[in-house]
């Protein structure tokens, strides 16, 4: 047992997955590193598959599972906001100050960074009683590419993870919001986008209040 305890003498850094042998952790890398750093899609697919399986353990409802995926994505959004703004040219390094700039930032910059392309649409709710709802549309979310949801969980959309990332970005820019993912694609044969997903962004009342106040001034 003795050899299991206490790190080896002479080892400067603790070893483990977080500490590579060459001592260079993710924190040693420059933040402005090459923009086109792509990762393996297959590795991500397997990783995300395990994340979904992990989140599905001991759940009581589909909402429970979506909530857990959302929580997994949230911290990524918070950090991504800072990272992406830092990488912007110095002149445009400002945080989004109103809803439209924020949503455009998400649709273009965040999507481009995560998925290599901008989102397919950005819409405002046409229902006049819901001025606080906006929709970001993705025709084929990368996270859902290989996922087939079983019939008995038909209202589940695993892009709830991406919704969590969006929520993190909104929260980080002081626009608290609730973001949910909804499947709107038809499952019929020959449908162009069977996996079409709408991310419904519902901003908190105080955000709408501030937006109205600023808009008048």
């Amino acid at each position, binding site marked *: 047992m003795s050899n299991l305890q206490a790190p080896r003498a002479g080892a400067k850094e603790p070893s483990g997955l977080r500490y590579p042998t060459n001592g260079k952790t993710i924190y040693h890398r420059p933040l402005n590193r090459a923009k086109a750093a792509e990762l393996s899609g*297959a590795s991500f*697919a*397997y990783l*995300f*598959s*395990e994340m*979904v*399986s992990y989140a*599905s353990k001991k759940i009581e409802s589909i909402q429970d599972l979506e909530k857990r995926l959302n929580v997994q994505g949230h911290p990524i959004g918070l950090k991504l906001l800072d990272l992406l703004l830092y990488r912007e040219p110095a002149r445009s390094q400002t945080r989004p100050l109103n809803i439209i700039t924020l949503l455009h930032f998400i649709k273009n910059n965040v999507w481009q960074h995560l998925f290599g392309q901008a989102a397919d649409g950005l819409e405002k709710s046409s229902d006049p009683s819901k001025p606080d709802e906006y929709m970001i549309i993705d025709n084929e979310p990368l996270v859902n590419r*290989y*996922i*087939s*949801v*079983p019939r008995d*969980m038909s209202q589940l959309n*695993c892009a709830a993870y991406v919704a969590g990332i969006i929520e993190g970005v909104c929260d980080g820019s002081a626009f608290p919001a609730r973001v949910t993912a909804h499947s709107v694609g038809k*499952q019929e*044969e020959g449908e162009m986008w*069977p*996996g079409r997903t709408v991310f419904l962004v519902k901003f908190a009342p105080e955000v709408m209040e501030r937006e109205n106040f600023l808009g008048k001034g």
Partner: protein
Amino acid sequence: MKVFGEIRHEQVKIGGESGKAYSSLRSTDLFSAAAIMGILALIVINKAGGLIYNRTFGDGLNQLGTNDYLVLAGTFHGVHAITTRLSPIKPQQQVGADGIPGRPDPPSGLEVLETENFWLQCFNTLTGTKFLLFTDTLQTNVDIAMRKVYDLYADYVTKNPFYQLENPIRCDTFDRKLNSYIRETNNAR
């Protein structure tokens, strides 16, 4: 290993009937006869010999009962296991460049079964899952089609968090991609 010879539709029922339908159609309706050419059916058998997927492509094909498909899968699994041990040639001891004797490749077992009316190609993955592709006897590039089917399986079945290994495959995206691929290859002929 290849099994050629006098296997008629009396022995292996699947496809035998469809072949009859095909030849009777050919005289009356050329168009619908063309529709049932090419890749006819796919069966996937798990490593324990259980049927986990079966699908026929195109109209007018002969269908077996659910039970018969299960029996077919189990029987094929057994026959395949026997054919891996049939080779009369002793396995050659391979010696690597460093002088250490290597392990010979495991025997592949039955790969192709040819009959008057259809061609059956079997692909056994490293983990023991078997893919059986039924085509008509004139189909070319069955290897490429098999490879593509395996690719689709690797993508849309094994990367799906809701699929449990060795269980029946119920994945909508897999069905969709498979159908569009098969339709594409069958129409290209």
